């Protein structure tokens, strides 16, 4: 299966650009109608969209079913939380430490996880994430079970400030846009093609002489780092770092977003995150027991949404996805 390909002026590129421009206008619109709530709602979508996009890189293009990606949300969030707790509020330091820690953890756990495949891989990623969840719970000096309140958001200097919600929104949007663009380049580059090859037939890739493990671990580390940044954003967004960010249901949520939006598509994870976050918001406003509705909805998604919402849109387009020429 080749990734989607298209020319620069196809209707889809234009649609994506218009969609991103609409997202960029959200703070202006919500200020105009006096509903600042929409900025926080869409920020939440963007943060989880970023995390889902990072998961999609290995899940969608690499076929590596990680059920522990929330781990990196936690790493990013706790980096901000713990550094701020000790009075270090410089955002660049937060960013560098987040990237370094995410890379280190994903490299080490990646090496262990890649020794297995299939069901064992799912279970081990889940277990590793849960290990860090319990680590967060047992950090009594950093709030333990209750989590850690962050009094000051990451300080990125005079260039741009995320102390206000609008600044944070544009940072999240910029990071999402950059990640989606780089994902696009990634899946069309040699690395991405190799990864797709390991997804469809890993034995053949090995037989062809590719160092498969190296590419898989590299993709896993890249994905972990991006998700770590999403965690950094999440902590700044909620002013809070909590073990709950690493809980295994969050990893499950991320998988649902990827599948719902469209696995192995560039825009799918963002679309999935948007629909899922809105669905959660609407359902939880409707009833306190919203999960009793969400659960069966997820079962239905697993049953029906093979290509996801964005994937369905792609399937309606006759020209692009069918031909598949690079």
């Amino acid at each position, binding site marked *: 299966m080749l990734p989607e390909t298209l020319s620069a002026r196809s209707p889809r590129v234009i649609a994506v650009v218009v969609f991103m421009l609409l997202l960029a206008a959200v703070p202006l619109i919500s200020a105009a109608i006096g509903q600042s709530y929409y900025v926080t709602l869409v920020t939440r979508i963007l943060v989880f969209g970023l995390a889902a996009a990072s998961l999609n890189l290995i*899940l969608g293009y690499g076929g590596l*079913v990680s*059920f522990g990606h929330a781990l990196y949300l936690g790493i990013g969030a706790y980096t901000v939380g713990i550094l701020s707790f000790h009075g270090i509020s410089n955002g660049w330091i937060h960013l560098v430490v987040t990237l370094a820690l995410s890379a280190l953890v994903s490299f080490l*756990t990646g090496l*262990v996880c890649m*020794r*297995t495949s*299939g*069901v*064992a891989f*799912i*279970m*081990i990623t*889940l*277990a*590793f994430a*849960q*290990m860090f969840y*319990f*680590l967060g*719970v*047992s*950090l*009594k*000096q950093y709030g333990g079970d209750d989590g850690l309140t962050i009094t000051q958001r990451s300080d990125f200097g005079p260039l741009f400030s995320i102390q206000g919600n609008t600044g944070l929104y544009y940072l999240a949007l910029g990071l999402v846009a950059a990640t989606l663009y780089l994902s696009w380049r990634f899946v069309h580059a040699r690395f991405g093609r190799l990864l797709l090859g390991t997804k469809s037939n890993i034995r053949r890739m090995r037989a062809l002489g590719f160092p498969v493990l190296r590419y898989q671990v590299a993709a896993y580390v890249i994905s972990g780092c991006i998700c770590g940044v999403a965690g950094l954003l999440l902590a700044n967004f909620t002013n809070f770092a909590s073990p709950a960010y690493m809980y*295994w*249901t969050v990893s*499950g949520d991320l*998988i*649902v977003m990827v*599948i719902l939006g469209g696995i192995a598509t560039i825009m799918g994870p963002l679309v999935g995150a948007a629909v899922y976050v809105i669905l959660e918001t609407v359902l939880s406003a409707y009833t306190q*027991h*919203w*999960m*009793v509705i*969400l*659960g*069966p*909805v*997820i*079962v239905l*998604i*697993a*049953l029906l949404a093979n290509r996801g919402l964005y994937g369905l849109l792609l399937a309606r387009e006759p020209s692009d996805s069918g031909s598949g020429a690079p």
Partner: protein
Amino acid sequence: MTWNLLVTQALNGLQFGVVLFLLAAGLTLVLGVMNFVNLAHGSLYMLGAYIAAAAFARSDSFIVAGVAAVLGTLLIGVVVERTTLRTFYARGHLDQVLATFGLILFFNEAVRIVWGASPVYMRPPDAFSGTIELLGFTYPSYRVLVIVVGLLMAGGLYLLIHHTRVGMLIRAGATNAQMVSVLGVNIRLVNTLLFGLGAAMAGLSGLMAGPIFSVQPGMGDNVLIAVIVVIVIGGIGSVRGAFYGALIVGVVDTVGRIYLPLLLRQVAERTVADAAGPALASMLIYLFMAVVLAVRPQGLFPARR
């Protein structure tokens, strides 16, 4: 004091281990035979505990509670298998994970609606509410009962799988389900039976765990993760592996939580040890799993094919 503590903790670990085994055996059989990842297995454990607590409170008889828990989870398991999960057997692991994840959310919330969010108390049966003398140590008799029932179930499962016709079909199904079906065996019925057996064992372990751990929504989730560690350590699809893996994880986790902080205090400063001890102890079984995987990716006791 220390010797006494060690024996008590080892027994607690053994008791946690047999609870884990009852869950791991069902999960690993379903995984090995049907190649199906059932994350909702922990939900059946939770439902078993709730049904037992409710039946015990009504009837005041632990035997009635046990029968209700086992039959109730058996019924729920078979209904869920027949209506929903069966369609996912032919699908990929990703879809199976997603579907059973949805089921977990549903069951956790359903339990919260029916029994409320706060924990439900369940006392041990009157005949086992005291302690007994065991090799010179006093130990709660209910926990002894749990260990004995767990070991009996392990023995019974061994006999079932290795010395009965149904067991033979299960083993054959694990090797080549299609061939078994071609030979005229209703493999779908075997699958349903196996799923029901796993569900009933999950219900039984929920019943036994009820008076020891608190009965509350989501109680199955954390146990499920420990069960997954057990299966990975023991080797996927291997009941023997699940047995040894469960005992190892049960003892390592229980004893580690008590002794690791004490050990750290001897080598590190008190403040450091007090901070790192509980953290390390809660990570212990996962680190152990990582080491096992690094050395033997197929698990310690892989299924013999």
